[in-house]
């Protein structure tokens, strides 16, 4: 059973030989970038460089997926925001939004650009997915991701204002989130058509550290449901932070699997959701994988499996400066311990 078969079978809830170790979020490494002789700042604007880099995590370490994009600004840029890729940065700086689309409450009434699929870097991403699939698609599942409606709205307008309006003028926010959902549906569809086997929806801004479970249910969930429902292949819903109170709602959004980070008590979530639910998680990609030693990596992977994750999967993007020996230790632990459960 190769990695691709293993991951796709997992999504279909069919029997597999061991717990897979993969991600639906960014997982490129500096080791991979350097091996190719690329610069981090360059790979966001070049489909081939992006795809080449994304493939190295599998090629070098056996990590069981290939995922693009690398940054979180594709959709906002297509909607009309201006992004900064920090072209001259020496180290690793992820692109951010430089200029918002909405500058105040009175500008919230926006409509969807009719040519969204051909705006910004959406075409570049489609090309990157195609290249990645042609390169390693017979060996691993190819993943891509879009943001969740609320997280995208928080990029398109001031997050501060969005949060307050979620409380004061929920109907206005709901309307905006619906437009965001429509945008994300278009982008996700393009990614699927380009060959993505699974799409992760990253609703990172709607964590219960930030919003009450009530606001989550009333405001965040409906547009999220709409996006996930439109994904015809496998889908994963990722939310950061403390998610134990909302895992049931996350499942109600209708994804094939949910993804949680280290602040989630997975044993508890497993109890709540039952043995059949697909729960991906939940190691700390920085404090364990980057700054931890090999022993910490191994014990953390074992704990994830013991707690009952369906796939060992990081709580966020893997930070590129991850030491190669930690990646090797992670995959070795998966191979030895992952089949025992």
């Amino acid at each position, binding site marked *: 059973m190769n990695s691709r078969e293993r991951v796709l079978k997992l999504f279909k809830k069919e029997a597999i030989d061991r717990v897979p170790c993969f991600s639906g979020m960014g997982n490129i490494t500096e080791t991979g970038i350097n091996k190719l002789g690329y610069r981090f700042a360059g790979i966001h604007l070049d489909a081939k460089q992006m795809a080449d880099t994304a493939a190295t995590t599998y090629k070098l370490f056996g990590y069981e997926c290939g995922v693009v994009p690398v940054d979180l600004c594709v959709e906002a840029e297509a909607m009309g925001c201006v992004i900064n890729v*920090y072209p001259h940065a020496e*180290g690793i700086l*992820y692109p951010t939004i430089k200029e918002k689309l909405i500058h105040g409450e009175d500008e919230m009434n926006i409509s969807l650009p009719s040519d969204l699929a051909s705006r910004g870097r959406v075409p570049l991403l489609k090309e990157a997915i195609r290249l990645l699939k042609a390169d390693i698609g017979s060996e691993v599942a190819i993943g891509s991701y879009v943001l969740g409606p609320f997280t995208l709205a928080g990029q398109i307008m001031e997050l501060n204002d969005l949060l*307050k309006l979620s*409380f004061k003028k929920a109907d206005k926010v709901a309307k905006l989130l619906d437009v965001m959902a429509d945008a994300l549906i278009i982008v996700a569809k393009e990614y699927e058509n380009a060959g993505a086997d699974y799409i992760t929806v990253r609703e990172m801004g709607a964590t219960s550290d930030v919003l009450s479970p009530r606001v989550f249910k009333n405001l965040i969930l409906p547009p999220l449901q709409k996006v996930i429902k439109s994904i015809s292949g496998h889908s994963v819903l990722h939310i950061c932070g403390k998610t134990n109170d909302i895992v049931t709602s996350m499942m109600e959004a209708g994804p094939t699997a949910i993804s949680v980070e280290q602040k989630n008590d997975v044993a508890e979530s497993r109890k709540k959701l039952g043995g059949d639910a697909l729960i991906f998680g939940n190691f700390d990609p920085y*404090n364990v994988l980057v*700054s931890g030693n090999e022993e910490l990596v191994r014990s953390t992977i074992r704990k994830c499996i013991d707690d009952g994750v369906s796939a060992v999967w990081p709580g*966020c*993007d893997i930070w590129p400066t991850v030491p190669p020996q930690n990646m090797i230790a992670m995959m070795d632990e998966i191979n030895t311990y992952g089949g025992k459960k």
Partner: protein
Amino acid sequence: MADETRKKEILDKLRNGVIQYDEDACREGAQEAVAEGLDANEAIFDGLVSGMEEVGRLFEAQEYFVPEILMCADALYAGLEILKPHCRQMDLGVKGSVVIGTVEGDVHDIGKNLVKMMFDVAGFTVYDLGRDVPLDKFVEEQLKTDSELVCLSAMMTTSMVGMPKVIEKIKEKNPNCMIMIGGAPTSKELADKWGADGYAEDASNALKEAIKMVAFLKKLRDEKAQKK
């Protein structure tokens, strides 16, 4: 000077105005405090800040979430704006200035703004560098202003890793400068490892840490007042 009952009434109005995110009530309470000769520092600490402490507690208890905190902060500022010009200079034996900003690569500034608010309240001179701030700018600004405190904020793991460089550079040039880091991906371990003096992982923690600092300053002030 207003009598004790009236004073309590005004302080309650300020406190509850913050808790119930009622900007108008805070404005009104502040105007009454000024008009009736209530000490502005007292109105800030025992009214507005006391309300914010309760907000921190409500957040902790998961009764309030970030939207509520932001609205409470707006209410606090509404009162502070009116009271601040009437504050007597706080003589604490420290100069009280702080450089604060979100590190380059990160455009999230909610936590940073909450911490900034508490320094504003405490009468610090705040040099707010904003967000997406190049690392060297923190070092430059600290040197230029000779601030005794630098606060670095990041919400994304992807931007936090610039922090140790700033800490190292500042400590190298000015070992006595205190550095506080904050944001979801930070931890006590990282703060220790990087040589930071304090950390706050989320808005509530940032608020608590800042309140702690401000409470400490208030204690100093009270002790001083007692000695006189």
